[in-house]
């Protein structure tokens, strides 16, 4: 059976990718399985300088979902290149570097810095809901999405994915803006902004007050947005949002996604990505699908 897919010119062994922020830089998972079995690895969000992140509490469970506000804690791009990337490459991983900046210039600088490294793709996060300075403003305005995509495109030879926020009025417009700016693909959805309140203390559960909602609770919204984005653009779409099983992954492929990312499931089960990969393979074999590419965009709408 053929599981490999071509994402923006990069051949992936299979369409299963752990999502940024749920997989660190892969080290913790390599204690459970060989991470080179994955289609690719999307790294923890990287910023120009190290970031401490938000104070705790940073996470809470909600019905069929989780809310998080980590605030982009990361060691900075230099430490990523020196310490994390060589290790990932040594493991045989295909690396998608997820980057976040506070200005168009910062995004371009990050892209330029990473251009000469062994990363396979760049994923530009214009949509982190948990930092006040940049992400939200960038992610919600098509004009800025276009500007960031354009600046990053000009700064690197690597394929560029723009990771979109669902916290927008029109996801198709956001996807089109990324395509017009020169993005090679879009990935979506990042988390939906949410909130939880502790009734005993009358305080927000998260120190950041609001957080990003993910997990099966958002899956129908994510699936709809991926479908709309795939309809709106001709570049590849990478889908994510509450994928817990191989069948969930298959649904996103049918909606038009070339590959999928698995996020929240990694927090419940360190083996989640491998299990989902095996389930997808099983689904294909049970349904007489010889090539996973047959699923991509295979949705029938009467």
């Amino acid at each position, binding site marked *: 059976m053929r599981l490999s897919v071509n994402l923006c010119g990069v051949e992936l062994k299979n369409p299963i990718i752990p999502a940024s922020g749920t997989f*660190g830089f892969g080290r913790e998972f390599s204690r*459970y399985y060989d991470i080179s079995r994955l289609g690719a690895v999307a790294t923890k969000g990287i910023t120009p300088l190290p970031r401490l992140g938000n*104070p*705790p*509490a*940073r996470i809470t469970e909600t019905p069929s979902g989780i809310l998080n506000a*980590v605030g982009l804690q990361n060691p900075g791009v230099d430490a990523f290149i020196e310490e994390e990337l060589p290790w990932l490459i040594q493991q045989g991983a295909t690396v998608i570097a997820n980057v976040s900046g506070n200005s168009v210039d910062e995004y371009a600088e990050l892209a330029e810095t990473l251009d000469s490294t062994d990363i396979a793709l760049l994923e530009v996060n214009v949509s982190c809901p948990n930092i006040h300075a940049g992400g939200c403003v960038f992610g919600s305005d098509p004009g800025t999405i276009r500007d960031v995509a354009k600046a990053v495109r000009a700064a690197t030879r690597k394929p560029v994915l723009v990771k979109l926020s669902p916290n927008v009025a029109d996801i198709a417009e956001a996807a089109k803006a990324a395509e017009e700016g020169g993005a090679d693909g879009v990935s979506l959805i990042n988390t939906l902004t949410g909130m939880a309140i502790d009734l005993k203390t009358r305080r927000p559960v998260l120190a950041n007050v609001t957080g990003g909602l993910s*997990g*099966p609770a958002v899956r129908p919204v994510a699936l709809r947005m991926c479908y709309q984005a795939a309809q709106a653009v001709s570049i590849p779409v990478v889908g994510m949002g509450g994928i817990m099983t191989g069948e969930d992954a298959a649904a996103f492929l049918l909606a038009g996604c070339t590959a999928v990312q698995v996020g929240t499931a990694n927090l419940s089960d*360190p083996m989640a990505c491998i299990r989902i990969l095996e389930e997808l393979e099983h689904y294909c074999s049970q349904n007489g699908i010889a090539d996973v590419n047959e699923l991509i965009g295979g949705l029938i709408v009467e």
Partner: protein
Amino acid sequence: MSNALPPFSAKLLSSRPLGGGMRELCLEVPDEFCRASRPGMFVHLKVPDAPQHLLRRPISIMDLEPEDNLLVLGVQPKGEGTRLICSLREGGCIEMLGPLGNGFSLNDAKTVWAIGGGVGVAPMLYACREFSKSARVTASLGFRTRDMIFSERDFHESAFRLVIATDDGTAGFHGNALAALSSHPLPDLIIACGPTPMLKAVQEFALGHNLHCQLSLEQRMGCGYGACLTCSCRTMSRDGEEHYARVCADGPVFDAGKVVL
């Protein structure tokens, strides 16, 4: 290198109330689990038959009997997830990840104070049992009131000396578990687990008296194995720089001199 024990299904051998609303769960665990387990470590439990509860629940190891492959947990039913865990029937199975985290280190200490408060008393039992093999362990256990006391007899058996304290004076020393030790000779090492105000008091006392001290912390947790960076606590490096450490993977036991409470 794949060397972590993957999630496994553990059979519930017995379940009984402990007092204070706590429940004692005895589970069957594999040899690899027993070999890797140390006092202060925890397990991450999936809420049984409830896929809507995505996150596991971190529960400290209360006791371990490796010869019988027996893991003992003390679980406080606090929210719906822990309530469902506590209502699991004997013979049923629960999916478990662990043992996780870094435990207490005895090093060369010959005398130890093991201070526990509330549900934080649970991991002290395992520590008492293990550390009593080569040290004199004084367990000081703090509870809100007499009815909340649990596992007193087990502590009697495993600790060199046992001190009970209650906030309302209904049993033992009237006051907290640290104050209850004020007339005792200072130990080589203090280990503690309990509510933050208690840990703060222990930290201040230990640093003030220049004593080795390890604190076990609690925080809202995601993955439990260091990937998601959500269960943070503030730490201070030697040069005075503040960082966020991961309670699950860098802790849950931290040196009292390094952690900012």
